[in-house]
């Protein structure tokens, strides 16, 4: 689409017609200062398309204060090989005419045709707003709005998708998004976004569940009721068939018969018990008499036994008495032996003491004589040492000084050798009798002299020769020699010697003397380690002790020769004491034995006396006879009783009393059980009838059926809602999926165009596009990584640039889809710095190769290098169409940061 001509009349500040011709492909740059009419021009173009010619909400188009004006806009453009002319008049004389080639449209038909072509819509009533602008809203950017991309893209969304959709093979849907919103709304009435049931739906589910629970409970009650009815039927039948015959009475009769039989048997058993008792008594009496007779017999035997015991005790006592004298003698002997042993041990002790003292005396006397010798030698050594010490100071010499002297002498002799080597040799061979004087010395014959210093040679008769030895070393050596000789003399003086040899001699003597002293001192230390005085004191002390010991020895008594040793004497004494103890113990023991024997003998006597007296009693014979007679009678009675008991027991056993008792119990219990059962049955029947009557009155089954009906309806409702929810869910999913698939198909080409522009601004950057074809995130390389930023988070300038790039990318996309594109930028990019602006200009220039661009600016200096001839609006206004001067803008401009 290419706009070729534009004409305004009676529109805002253009009270007079303004015509702009010769619009070119690519960029058309309009410049002018503030209020020169740029925005009016933009407003006029927008009004021509967006506003209904009939609209009464466009009075802002009239020149100020002129309410009778008819704002008029005429546009000419080429599109798809045809020339289009649009003439639109508002307010005063409303009209709209559109000529396309030879065709002519007017009024709303013309407006709709344009709207469809460019992809926008008209408002229902009132002025056109952003949401109606569609695709032009995206490509025609108002002042300061280029950075806002969200709104325009969403307003254009549907138009974009339907416009672009055609190029994608009819996949877009005209009403799709609206439909999705509708389905979402319907679904939201049943399901939450996460697929949970919503309030009403949930209530139906709950109602159903509660109804189901009630129904189950009722079913159970009905089932219970039926079971009880059946039970009642069974009970009533049993009552009629069983209880009517009173079967328990027969049982009671049987029990009575058995009871009569049992009573008879019990009487026999009682008699039997009495006889048995009598028999037991009879047998016990017999035993008593038998025991009595046996006792009589036993007493005779006992008397004999006791006589024997008495004799035995007396014999034992006598034996005991006989043993006493022997034991007493043994003790006396032992006492005597003990006394003797004790005396012998005393003597042995004295002898041992004497021997010990004698030994000490001998040892001490011996030591005293040794100490006297040592003392004598030590005293002599002490004198000799004193003498040696007196000699020592004369021979003493400082060894360090001596060593120094030795080194000095060596240095001197080395020096002499070097002097000899360096000295001027004067060989001479004089005529006999002739002599010369060398230095102060007269020389004759032949020989050699070393000259180490300037020397005068006086040859008599001839004169004097002065010989100066060459080189400096000779003189230096001479000076060193003098220094060394001086040191030598000093050292000898200090050491008080004439020569080094003498010093060495003295050093050797001193060493020898020191050794002698050391030797003598060692000997003295051996003899008197603690000194000679200590040695002397010890000797005197030993002498005193010897005197004391000798006095002690003299006081001890003399002893016999055959005395045994002290140890033997002690052992003998111990043996004697043991023997004495044993003898005394034996005697004591015997005395006890004798006491016991006397007691036993007395007891035996007493027992025999007592039994003997008893046997001799007078009524004993009569008692024995009486006992024998009673025993015989008792035996006869026992026989009689045993016979009677045996006969009766046979009778009892035959009657089987236990079985009879069981029979009674069994028959009685049976009768009771039968009666109880009948009573219970009757009671149960009454209970059941009452209960069933109560339940019957509730109309359980009817209630159950009613509940079933409710339940069935709820189930139906639930199923309907469930099916609808599932259907809406499916529908929404399918719609979204398909839409997303479509969006993906659209995203790729848009992305391509975006990147095309973006790489001119930020190489390697990437602007992502979401499913609504909205640019979202800018990713730029940053160091080694990446920097990501959502569009709204970018700086104002960057947002502006991204906004423009996105719009251009959309334009490219539309153009590829064969849609008309016209780009209008009213003072765009005022926030971009000069470097970015340069890049953006490259981008704009690139875009302008494919799209016509109308660019309005109050900063002409910013756009001089855009490759377009600026049109100065002010000049156009006064009908003077000349290139605008950029310099004037630059004078005013400065930083282009404010809107015009």
């Amino acid at each position, binding site marked *: 689409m290419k706009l070729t001509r534009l004409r305004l009349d009676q529109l805002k500040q253009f009270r007079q017609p303004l015509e702009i011709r010769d619009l070119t492909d690519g960029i058309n740059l309009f410049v002018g200062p503030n209020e020169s009419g740029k925005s009016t021009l933009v407003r006029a173009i927008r009004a021509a398309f967006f506003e209904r010619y009939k609209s009464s909400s466009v009075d802002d188009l009239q020149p100020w204060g002129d309410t009778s004006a008819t704002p008029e806009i005429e546009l000419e453009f080429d599109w798809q090989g045809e020339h289009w002319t649009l003439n639109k008049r508002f307010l005063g004389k409303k009209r709209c005419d559109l000529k396309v080639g030879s065709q002519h449209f007017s009024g*709303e038909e013309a407006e709709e045709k344009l709207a469809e072509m460019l992809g926008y819509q008209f408002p*229902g009533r009132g002025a056109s707003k952003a949401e109606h602008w569609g695709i032009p809203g995206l490509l025609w950017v108002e002042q300061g709005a280029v950075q806002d991309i969200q709104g325009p893209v969403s307003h254009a969304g549907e138009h974009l*998708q*339907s416009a672009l*959709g055609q190029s994608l093979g*009819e*996949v*877009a*849907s*005209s*009403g*799709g998004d*609206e*439909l999705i919103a*509708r*389905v979402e709304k*319907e679904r939201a009435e049943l399901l939450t976004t996460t697929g949970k049931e919503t309030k009403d739906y949930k209530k139906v589910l709950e109602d159903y569940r509660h109804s189901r629970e009630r129904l189950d409970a009722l079913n159970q009650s*009905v089932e219970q*009721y*039926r079971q*009880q*009815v*059946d039970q*009642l*039927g069974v*009970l*009533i039948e049993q009552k009629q068939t069983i209880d009517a015959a009173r079967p328990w009475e027969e049982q009671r009769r049987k029990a009575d018969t058995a009871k009569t039989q049992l009573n008879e048997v019990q009487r026999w058993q009682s008699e039997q018990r009495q006889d048995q008792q009598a028999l037991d008594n009879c047998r016990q009496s017999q035993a008593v008499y038998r025991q009595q007779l046996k006792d009589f017999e036993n007493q005779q035997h006992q008397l004999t036994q006791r006589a024997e015991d008495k004799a035995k005790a007396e014999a034992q006592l006598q034996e005991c008495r006989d043993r006493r004298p022997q034991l007493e003698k043994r003790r006396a002997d032992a006492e005597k032996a003990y006394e003797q042993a004790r005396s012998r041990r005393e003597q042995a002790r004295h002898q041992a003491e004497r021997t010990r003292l004698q030994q000490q005396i001998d040892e001490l006397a011996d030591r005293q004589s040794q100490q006297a010798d040592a003392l004598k030698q030590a005293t002599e050594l002490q004198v000799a040492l004193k003498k040696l010490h007196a000699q020592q100071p004369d021979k003493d010499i400082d060894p360090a000084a001596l060593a120094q002297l030795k080194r000095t002498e060596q240095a001197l002799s080395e020096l002499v050798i070097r002097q000899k080597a360096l000295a001027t040799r004067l060989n001479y061979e004089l005529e006999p009798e002739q002599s010369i004087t060398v230095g102060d010395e007269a020389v004759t014959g032949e020989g050699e002299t070393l000259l180490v210093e300037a020397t005068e040679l006086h040859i008599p008769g001839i004169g004097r020769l002065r010989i100066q030895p060459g080189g400096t070393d000779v003189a230096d050596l001479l000076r060193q020699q003098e220094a060394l000789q001086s040191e030598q003399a000093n050292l000898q003086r200090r050491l008080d010697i004439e020569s080094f040899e003498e010093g060495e001699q003295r050093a050797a003597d001193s060493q020898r003397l020191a050794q002698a002293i050391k030797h003598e001192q060692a000997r003295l230390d051996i003899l008197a380690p603690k000194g000679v005085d200590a040695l002397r004191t010890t000797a005197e002390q030993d002498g005193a002790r010897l005197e004391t010991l000798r006095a002690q020895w003299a006081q001890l008594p003399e002893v016999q020769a055959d005395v045994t040793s002290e140890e033997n004497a002690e052992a003998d004494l111990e043996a004697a004491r043991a023997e004495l103890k044993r003898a005394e113990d034996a005697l004591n023991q015997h005395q006890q034995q004798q006491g016991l024997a006397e007691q036993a003998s007395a007891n035996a006597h007493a027992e025999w006396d007592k039994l003997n007296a008893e046997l001799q009693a007078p009524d004993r014979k009569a008692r024995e006879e009486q006992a024998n007679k009673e025993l015989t009678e008792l035996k006869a009675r026992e026989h009689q009783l045993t016979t009677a008991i045996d006969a009766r027991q046979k009778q009892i056993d035959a009657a089987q009393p236990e079985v009879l008792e069981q029979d009674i119990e069994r028959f009685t219990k049976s009768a009771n059980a039968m009666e109880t059962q009948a009573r219970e049955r009757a009671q149960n029947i009454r209970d*059941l*009838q009452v209960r*069933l*009557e109560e*339940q*019957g*009155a*509730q*109309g*359980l*089954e*009817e*209630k159950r*059926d*009613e509940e*079933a*009906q409710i*339940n*069935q*309806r709820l189930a139906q409702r639930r199923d309907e809602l469930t*099916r*609808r929810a*599932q*259907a*809406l869910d*499916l*529908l929404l999913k*399918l*719609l979204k999926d*398909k*839409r997303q*698939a*479509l969006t993906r198909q659209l995203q790729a080409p848009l992305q391509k165009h975006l990147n095309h522009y973006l790489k001119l601004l930020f190489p390697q950057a990437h602007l992502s596009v979401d499913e609504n074809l909205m640019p979202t995130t800018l990713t730029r390389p940053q160091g080694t990584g990446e920097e990501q930023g959502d569009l709204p988070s970018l700086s104002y300038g960057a947002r502006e640039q991204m906004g423009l790039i996105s719009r251009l990318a959309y334009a490219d996309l539309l153009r590829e889809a064969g849609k008309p594109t016209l780009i209008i930028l009213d003072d765009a990019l005022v926030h971009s710095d000069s470097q970015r602006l340069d890049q953006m200009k490259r981008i704009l220039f690139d875009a302008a190769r494919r799209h016509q661009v109308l660019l309005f600016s109050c900063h002409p200096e910013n756009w001089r290098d855009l490759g377009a001839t600026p049109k100065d609006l002010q000049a156009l206004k006064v009908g003077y169409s000349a290139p605008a001067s950029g310099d004037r803008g630059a004078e005013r401009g400065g930083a282009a940061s404010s809107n015009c």
Partner: protein
Amino acid sequence: MPRFLHTADWQIGRQYSRFAEEDASILADARFTAIETLAALATEQAVDAVLVAGDVFDAQNLSDRTIHRTFQAMAGFTGPWLLLPGNHDAALAESVWTHAQRLSAVPDNVDLLLTPEVRVYQDLGFAVLPAPLTQRQTYNDLTEWFDRADTPEGLLRIGLAHGSVEGQLAEEIDSTNPIAADRAATARLDYLALGDWHGYKTIDARTRYSGTPEQERFKDNGAGQALIVDIERPGAEPQVQSHTTGQFQWIKHQDTLAVASDIERLMTELDALPPRSVVDLTLNGEVDLSGYQTLLHYLGGAEARHRSFQSHLSGLNLIPTEEDIAALHADGYVGEVIGELRERQEGQGEEADTARTALAILAGMLRENGTTSESEQVESAK
């Protein structure tokens, strides 16, 4: 010449859970109305007695009100009503009958035949041999004792039984409560009035099922009638005439749609049904979207015309045509969604049902959208 009214299977207390609440209560009420109709018929026909051959009540445990209403509905005929317990209202130890007796709801002219013993109506000229069920089910022929039972000379012998005549009711071959097919002959009965089979059925000249007086199933077997039975004298062949007593006809209609014109045909057929019926419609096959809309529109009208009109369309696949899609403006991906749903609805499972419903919802929305946007355009044009 004794004259009887033979009816059975009133099934009082039956609930109709498959219907809408309002319809269900009207259908339940219709059963009471049927008794009134029977009473009126009995009076009009001047019968000597009304024989009710079992299943007077649908359940044992009914509310006092239902029991009272039942007996009160009989007031229109003051002659004897002979009520026989059937399998639904068997004469158990505790039953709807004992309940009714306790309530004193049973009028004097109503005889409850709770025990299997001969009842002699000497003045009226007949003796009754009843075979009441005293258990819910039995596998014995309860009418067997009829063969051995003596009745006074000169009286008609009328049998009353409830169950399945052996070998006659194919669908219920193994059913319980059997009755020998030749019982009327072996027991020398003049007439054997039967209940249990809800349709009208003649077993032989002396043995018949009267059917229920008010239809309650989708079965076309002559339900909704009562029989007037005339017997000249003992041994004479009964003269039987049927009278319609039912209010509502129950109609089950099934159809398969294949081509567009089938809808037209179906509507014609449905138009021909008697009004105020209880209709159950099941459709299978395929239909395009416009046809579907037409159908829904028609069914809406039909629902109003009938007592109850239930339609089952889950067997009907929606096949949108190109014209449908164009008419719905279902371009782009919405068109694809329609295509996908169309494929998914094939088959029988739950998923197919969901897809079918989804397709119907989508079509509905698109249609509404179309009409709104059109109306919007019209409005904005103004």
